């Protein structure tokens, strides 16, 4: 039996880390979740045990104490695998725990293989054209971070979960104090959008055109890193490995080549329409509909057609 510890830092119903476990363990598992109350299930769940961190004692972002808490817990329970979501907190907590336990850490795993008992962690490498298989060396728990939403468990089996609050832990005085939290002026999240109009290097000079098509289709605009790096748009709308993982029903990729890192952000997208001057660009292999040609030309013509037809439609019904 393998013992797994999962740090919860997303919605309680997010089971993507449990999905990752399925891919790398082919025997029975005992699943322990650890996290703050708002991120953990409150009743019976897929977990055998849930350990709730007391937010009066250890504040989120106090990664020194969180790390000690997890390390102590590991020393008691000797987990085989410890998983973190690659959330903002997960990304600064996981490396600390890895050093405390003297084990390796692989970031943003996108696929997993069990190869003759060895777990291979897969992530994009360098150029965006290659994937790397990575193996952990040495003894001690296997650690990785996984982007939320990348994996989904196939079978969900409800267990009678033992929920415990972690009271015994004596934290050190915190060196980080939260002064205040302010909500940003509300900006829409590309992850919630059913349709995304996404632009890349091929529309760099005309990125503002995307907005027109987005309005007509009641969609949101997103971008590849090429556009974000050029400073035109905020990283908040970047799709991909260092951006967001999105699952819209329709993804219109305008002048995007489809590097590994970009495609990593496209999970469970129903339909991709790729508009590209090069119909052999990688993104075109993933698309249901490939439009060969200039993306701005495409936007203008399609927008005109949509506007014209909706006008006709109005006239007919009046």
């Amino acid at each position, binding site marked *: 039996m393998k013992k797994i510890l999962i740090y919860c830092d997303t919605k309680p119903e997010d089971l993507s880390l449990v999905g990752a476990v399925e891919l790398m363990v082919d025997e029975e598992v005992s699943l322990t979740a650890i996290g703050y109350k708002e991120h953990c299930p409150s009743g019976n769940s897929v977990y055998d045990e849930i350990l709730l961190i007391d937010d009066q004692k250890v504040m989120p*972002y106090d*990664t*020194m104490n969180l*790390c000690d808490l997890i390390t102590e817990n590991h020393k008691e329970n000797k987990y085989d695998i410890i998983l973190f979501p690659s959330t*903002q907190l997960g*990304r*600064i907590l*996981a*490396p*600390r725990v*890895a*050093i405390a336990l003297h084990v*390796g*850490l*692989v*970031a*943003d795993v996108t696929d997993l293989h069990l190869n003759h008992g060895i777990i291979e962690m897969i992530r994009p490498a*360098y150029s965006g054209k*290659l*994937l790397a298989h*990575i*193996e952990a*060396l040495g003894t001690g728990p296997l650690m990785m971070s996984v982007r939320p939403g990348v994996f989904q468990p196939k079978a969900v089996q409800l267990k009678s979960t033992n929920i415990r609050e972690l009271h015994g832990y004596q934290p050190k005085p915190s*060196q*980080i*104090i939260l*002064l*205040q*939290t*302010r*909500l*940003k002026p*509300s900006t829409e999240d590309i992850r919630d959008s059913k349709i995304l109009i996404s632009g890349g290097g091929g529309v760099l000079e005309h990125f503002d055109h995307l907005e027109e098509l987005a309005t007509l*289709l009641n969609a949101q605009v997103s971008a590849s890193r090429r556009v974000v790096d050029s400073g035109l748009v*905020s*990283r908040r709308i970047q799709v991909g*490995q260092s951006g967001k993982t999105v699952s819209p029903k329709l993804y219109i990729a305008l002048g995007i080549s489809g590097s*590994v890192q970009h*495609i990593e952000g496209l999970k469970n997208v129903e*339909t991709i*329409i790729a508009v590209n001057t090069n*119909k052999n660009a*990688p993104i*075109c*292999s*993933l*698309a*249901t*509909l*490939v*439009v*060969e*040609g*200039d993306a701005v*030309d*495409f936007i203008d*013509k*399609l927008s005109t*057609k*949509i506007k014209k037809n909706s006008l006709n439609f109005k006239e007919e019904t009046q």
Partner: protein
Amino acid sequence: MKIVCLIKFIPDVEDFKYDHERNVLIREKMNQILNPEDAVAVAFALNVKKYYPSTTIELVSMGPQSIIPKLEELLRLDLDQATLITDLAFVGSDTYATSRIIAHYLTKHKFDLILTGTHTLDGDTSHVPAQIAQWLGLPHLSNVNSIHMNSIDLGRLELSVDHDQEIMSFAVSTPAVLSLQKEAPYKLPYVRFEDLNKDVSERLKMLSLKDFDLKREDVGFEGSKTKVIKTYAQTLNRQTKIEVTTDEAGIQTVYDYLKDKGFLK
């Protein structure tokens, strides 16, 4: 106040070369650029120095000797010292080994603040700063988008962190490790014209394995806790697809498709 900036020169991702036999990136031949967020961190440090002239700034970078000219370019700004940690023995270090080597250097020195980028454009793991903070037993925050200049003197820094839909303000006791994000409003100045060819070599220090109390097996491939087994090109599952162009017929096909699937009312 003494500030250490951890900076990394990264291959310009557009022209990368990869050694498939050894599974490493060939850095020596590539055009190297300063990781943009690290530039933001250095720019902030220079701002502090403007406000508080007694501030000293040291750049620390681990990488190949080919980045020396780039470090010298930076040293022509108002920076006090650059330390290049460089040795062929370090090649192949994963983030565990890298953070261990850099932290080892830092334990021997006094500083109030370590500034880094939140992540690098090439590796994008965000591991190194948090790992160094753990080796040194220091608090750490990432995605920092501003540090309040007035708090610098208090031994307790006030700063804001960009957390998705929220901005969180924290007070952190120093010494601390802070990772800045690209959106922070600090920009590197240009080198003054008269300094363009200034000799700065006496402010550049180079360290190799023999300068560390680390053994050969603690660094490089041997000192790493992860190993790349293989890399390969991704094969994409080809979809059964429709191919059109942007002529009238093509646009009509797209329009009909959108209507048909209910994306257009």
